[in-house]
């Protein structure tokens, strides 16, 4: 069996990473919207698409995804007075609300947990798992993914499909950066083990 030597160093989603000035500006918007809800508009405009894509990535129905996205921003606006600046982008707080709302929609049976992947992402993941990019392995990977639990698939999505840093994953899942790393490592190991068993 031919295997790649080492997985490529992952590119990181740049949307999450803001300069100090941008973070300060964003914090100003938050402070203003705490005083006056109408000042929330710039934050809404800036993050609407990101949050929608995050939500829609995890469900099948577009309309439900729009509803959930609206709900996320409504909750954010209702609870903006509770927001505390922790030196990370405002988006991490929105993602946390979005994650909670998406899970709520699963519980309410409004949406079914769906994993949306591009073909190239599948092959990248196969590469990261140090497997050959064959159609068999692709099929096997799809099968493995469909049998992961919700927590595990969340980590894989955030890390390998959405290319988020461990720090960001930690912020979204309310974990420490190291904990996020450990969890991601465990999932990958589990997937590798399944591959190994299948190859034997």
């Amino acid at each position, binding site marked *: 069996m031919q295997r790649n030597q080492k997985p490529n160093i992952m590119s990181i989603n740049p949307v999450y990473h803001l300069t100090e000035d941008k973070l300060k500006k964003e914090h100003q918007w938050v402070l203003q919207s705490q005083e006056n*809800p*109408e000042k*929330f*508009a710039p934050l*809404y*405009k800036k993050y*609407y*698409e990101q949050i*929608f*894509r995050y939500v*829609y990535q995890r469900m*099948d129905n*577009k309309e439900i995804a*729009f509803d959930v996205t*609206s709900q996320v*921003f*409504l909750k954010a*606006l*209702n609870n903006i007075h509770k927001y505390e600046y922790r030196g990370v982008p405002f988006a991490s707080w929105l993602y946390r609300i979005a994650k909670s709302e998406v899970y709520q929609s699963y519980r309410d049976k409004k949406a*079914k*947990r*769906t*994993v*949306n*992947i*591009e*073909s190239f992402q*599948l092959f990248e993941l196969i590469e990261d798992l140090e497997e050959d990019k064959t159609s068999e392995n692709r099929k096997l990977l*799809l099968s493995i*993914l*469909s*049998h*992961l*639990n919700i927590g595990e*698939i969340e980590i894989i999505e955030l890390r390998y499909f959405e290319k988020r840093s461990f720090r960001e994953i930690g912020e979204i899942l309310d974990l420490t950066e190291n904990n996020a790393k450990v969890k991601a490592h465990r999932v990958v190991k589990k997937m590798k083990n399944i591959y190994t068993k299948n190859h034997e």
Partner: protein
Amino acid sequence: MNKLKINVDRLKMSSKDISSRMDFEDILLSHKIMAKPFYKSAWFFGVTGLATVSLIVGSMYTLNQEGDELYRNIQIVDNVSKITDTENNLINNKEIELNLNETTKIEKPIDNKTTLKIISNETEKIITINNSTEFQKNSKEDAVDSNPISEVENESINEVPKTFSFIDLHPRISGKFDGTITKDELMNDEGLTTNSDVEIISFQLHLIEGMTSKVFDSKGNKLNSEMKLAIENVNVGEEVYFEKIKGKAHTGEIFRLSPIRYVMLN
């Protein structure tokens, strides 16, 4: 384990499509609807709390004012005896004899003046007394104005809506009209009396014996020998009741006075 649904290469939505669904006004409207109601806000608690405290303080102040008013009235009543002495002095100086059948009325003080109204059997007199210090310094002519009621300060009397009249009709034995009493006090020679010109003409003595009571009647205000004998047998802590006490005023009018109750001390 639930099997997840996996979509590969789903059609991507363009940013334009996503942006077209943005509606901040709708979010803002929903936020306003869902905003915390006024009764949950700190303002509400602050305002209602302040109002409640003000109400309590206001009520307490008002009650205290009323209490002071009552206390002042009580003081006027207490002063009756003192004023009676002053009155006697005044009367002696003017060489006027006071009839015992007099009723004294004290008007509420106005402008440092106390109006003493003496109503005797035949005439009515009003004595206006300046404040006490002035009264003692001034001569009797200055202090006392003994003109008939029609000529003296009728206007000032009319200005005062409240007058305080005090006639004590409560019957008593040895000065007590309630509480504990000794057998000696109970059986003294004065019998039942009042602090006014009302004379007690009959009464009943009730003594509790087991589940029943024994009743003794007396004509007049004194305890008869049968009553005294019964009282001798009353134990410490037992109760003695005087009921159906009838009094006769100097006008000849007969009326019933309030009953009295004592607890035996010896």
